[in-house]
């Protein structure tokens, strides 16, 4: 398969106005992914599926990720004059990053036998701007997985043919895979509790 920055360039050439960003990955797998702007996601998906070099005709997995509000510390080396001597000093800058939800697609090509290409869509925030574009019109197999992302993370996928809850029941009002979800308190009987469960079970013990 093409290198990921080449793919990013091809996407930019094919879909005018799209924002494509290569997401770095500093874990040992070093698997890079592409962040696609939501409003052009459908056009990008169509391009990835039909492009002769890529032909990514199979979406194997759709996943949700919940990113909470975070403070990101970046270290930069700055030259400073300390006591009349010029020294290289590390400076940490803190930037606040508001939380968002992410939908991640793993794409393969059955015909050319390559992949995965990982593309991501992000929502504006975790509360009211929770819309991304559904890619079910392009890859039919995304339908249930996107429903699952909607069910467990609360991402609304615009253009989905049948966006309903799939695992939890219809009246359920939470999104259980979000990091700030608190499960119902039925810890009254725990034979071997430990950690957080122990703390919650203790509230039920007779005083």
């Amino acid at each position, binding site marked *: 398969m093409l290198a990921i920055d080449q793919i990013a360039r091809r996407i930019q050439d094919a879909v005018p106005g799209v924002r494509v960003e290569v997401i770095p990955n500093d874990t040992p797998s070093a698997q890079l992914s592409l962040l696609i702007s939501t409003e052009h996601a459908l056009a990008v998906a169509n391009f990835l599926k039909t492009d002769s070099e890529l032909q990514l005709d199979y979406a194997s997995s759709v996943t949700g990720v919940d990113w909470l509000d975070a403070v990101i510390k970046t270290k930069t080396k700055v030259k400073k004059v300390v006591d009349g001597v010029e020294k290289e000093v590390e400076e940490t800058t803190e930037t606040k990053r508001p939380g968002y939800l992410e939908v991640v697609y793993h794409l393969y090509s059955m015909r050319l036998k390559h992949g995965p290409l990982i593309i991501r869509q992000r929502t504006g925030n975790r509360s009211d701007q929770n819309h991304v574009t559904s890619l079910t019109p392009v890859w039919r197999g995304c339908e249930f997985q996107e429903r699952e992302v909607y069910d467990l993370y609360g991402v609304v996928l615009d253009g989905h043919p049948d966006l309903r809850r799939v695992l939890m029941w219809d009246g*359920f009002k939470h999104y259980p895979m979000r990091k700030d979800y608190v499960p119902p308190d039925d810890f009254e009987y725990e034979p071997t509790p430990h950690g957080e469960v122990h703390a919650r079970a203790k509230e039920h013990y007779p005083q």
Partner: protein
Amino acid sequence: MGMDERSAHVEMNTPGPDEGLRSELSKQGIFTVKLQDMYNWGRKNSIWPLQFGLACCAIEMIAASMARYDLARFGAEVFRPSPRQADLMIVAGTVTKKMAPQVVRLYNQMPEPKYVIAMGACAISGGPFKQGYNVLKGIDRYIPVDVHIPGCPPRPEALMHAFMTLQRKIDAQALTGENRPRHLDPAAPSEFPVPALGEDDIVPAKNERVWEAPVLIR
């Protein structure tokens, strides 16, 4: 049974003819037995289970009913697809909260006398999913369970052991008196409230009349 409470009491709870007389009668080809023993003997050897499975334990249940383990030896091979014809509910597998109302409703639709075997770690306590948000922490929170089988999943032998335990339990049931089975006690409930799917959890989280949290001594 077509007899009033008093005559049934006389018929079933008297000790019956003594050993010598029974032996003497059997030499003449006459066998005497108490009606209660006769009734329970028939019941315990024709327990028809309800045909449904919830998770991987169901595979072991199916294996138990097939030729190698052959549940038919215990008279329980007729798995009924309708609760109206079933005597036994084998709760074989994880009961998710979404599924719990349906399981209780099926139990309510079974005619008395009815029995429940909770099969496997999930059905008796929630198992490995106990501390999750979506799995019921034991079906005994809503319906009375007669036999619990631990295991993940229990082997077919364990299910057979549960069957034999249930048969012994049925055999020991006196048809009159304080400890008579539920279906002979007009005051005992035959149906149990079906929980509803609420906004956060199923409500109520347990049936207080059936289950209360065991007191752990620490």
